[in-house]
């Protein structure tokens, strides 16, 4: 018997595999392929106060071992969410977490207040790292003062678990993680996408309508792992690793580097069952290596 569970404060997760925001819809899109309740948690797609149409088509380009997207937080807003999505997702027997976004600090605060009232949402992921919106998003996540301001403001109104999602597009991600910890975040998740670009040489134009977009997939895994390792050494709150995790072995790399849990993103597009397969894969790896608790391997490379 292997224990896969972990916790953020007093919030328990049955296993360390969550799905990454914007790559798993509201979970419903995956019900034909898997039992969503088998996951440690799901992070719902980026939600804003008002409905958003996102950026124009084309919003996606394939790159070597990765993809660029510039969806730009298309979503129907919190009202629609409460009325039409919440009733369904609150039926999942796992932690359902909302990823929140805004242009201004007030937007984040208002959203957090609304979600605080939803019984079955035990945590929010504060996204200060979306590279695909003109205002807010990454602007908060690449400036230490703005990051502090928005985290502080949300923390003041939100009493459940607060996860801050960090941007990799910075010189020193550890500074941002420390600020999150100082301001009372319960956990940090990283990384969001790397800002990238691609050119269509046939038509001699950018591949994306927005020119730049967010790079995800295996291509970014080495960068994500490095950042997770740096952050895990530097803060005491749990670190959730994200970036290019396609299979069990990728997930284990993050755990050994210091992540307490992982999120599966782009992998779900190629294999909708990737996340549940990884839950099982981690169990087997631990059994194989004769560990009885996942905690034994977390941050193993920092331990001697």
């Amino acid at each position, binding site marked *: 018997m292997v224990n896969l569970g972990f916790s953020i404060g007093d919030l328990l997760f049955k296993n360390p595999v969550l799905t990454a925001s*914007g*790559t*798993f*819809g509201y979970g419903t*899109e*995956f019900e*034909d*392929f898997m039992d969503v309740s088998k996951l440690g948690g799901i992070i719902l*797609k980026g939600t804003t106060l008002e409905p958003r*149409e*996102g950026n*124009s*088509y*084309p*919003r*996606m*380009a*394939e*790159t*070597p*071992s*990765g*993809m660029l*997207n510039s*969806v730009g937080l*298309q979503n129907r807003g919190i009202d629609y969410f409460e009325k039409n999505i919440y009733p369904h997702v609150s039926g999942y027997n796992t932690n359902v977490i909302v990823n929140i976004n805004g242009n201004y600090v007030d937007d984040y605060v208002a959203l957090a207040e609304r979600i605080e009232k939803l019984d079955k949402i035990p945590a929010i992921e504060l996204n200060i790292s979306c590279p695909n919106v003109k205002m807010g998003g990454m602007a908060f996540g690449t400036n230490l003062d703005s990051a502090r301001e928005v985290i502080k403001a949300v923390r003041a109104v939100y009493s459940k678990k607060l996860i801050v999602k960090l941007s990799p597009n910075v010189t020193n991600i550890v500074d941002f993680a420390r600020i999150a910890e100082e301001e009372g975040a319960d956990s940090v998740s990283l990384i969001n996408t790397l800002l990238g670009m691609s050119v269509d040489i046939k038509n001699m134009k950018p591949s994306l309508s927005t020119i730049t977009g967010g790079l995800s*997939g*295996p291509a970014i895994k080495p960068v994500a792992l490095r950042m997770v390792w740096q952050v895990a050494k530097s803060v005491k709150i749990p670190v959730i690793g994200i970036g290019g995790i396609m299979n069990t072995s990728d997930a284990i790399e993050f755990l050994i580097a210091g992540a307490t849990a992982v999120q599966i993103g782009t992998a*779900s*597009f*190629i*294999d*909708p*069952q990737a996340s549940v397969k990884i839950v099982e894969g981690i169990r087997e790896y631990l059994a194989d290596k004769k560990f009885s608790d996942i905690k034994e391997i977390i941050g193993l490379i920092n331990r001697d």
Partner: protein
Amino acid sequence: MTKRIEDLKIKGNKRLNKDIFILELSGNAKIPEMKPGQFAQVKIEGSPETFLRRPISIHDVDYENNTFKLLIQIAGKGTDTLSRLEKGDFLNLIYPLGNSFSLPEKGERSLLVGGGCGVAPLLFLAKNLKSNGYTPDVLLGYRNIERIIEYQEFSQTGKVFLTTEDGSKGEKGFVTDHSVLSSPSYDMIYCCGPDSMLKAVAGYCKKNRIRCEVSLENLMGCGIGACLCCIVETIRGNLCTCTDGPVFNINELKW
């Protein structure tokens, strides 16, 4: 209609011309019910340049033999890899995905318009219409006589009109130039092909107040409504080509 992810066995790979081939797939389990216009997300093995799945329409279904077909044009690395598959190989599919073409009203006259590999979803549609008691006409456009594919197959479902750009067979010009369209006598037109063709046919239909459904080929990240990469602007806002489409009524599109 539940979606599934499944390894299917290649029963055959038939080359129609230099660029186009048909894969016949057979399921181990019973294949699901599919509808004309739906597609599959096909996994391409073994290349960093084909990281994402490729969307390919359901071309033809044979429930009795538990097989179905994909008609594919080589457009790049992914489709090239598919063209090398051999009998006995396996192909991983997520399917069936997307909405489907709607049936005409009873007694209405319909026309299917396809260009190049845009004929892919239309054969299944033609057969479906036929088995539902319609006799749709078909108008196919190709670059030249060598590019003509699936003529026989469509002939079995109804009358077939042809255009070629160089006039080497059928009428010369684009599909919208064909004489069968000169006096608008259809109630419903279904169209699939390159963007320029879709827009030309849509223009014709709007002018002549003919109902028209087009199948779009937007870039897709996931095919199941999770990534929001495949959107098309509609009067109802941005919709997903993979779940709200790929078939859209032209009146919905902001063209």
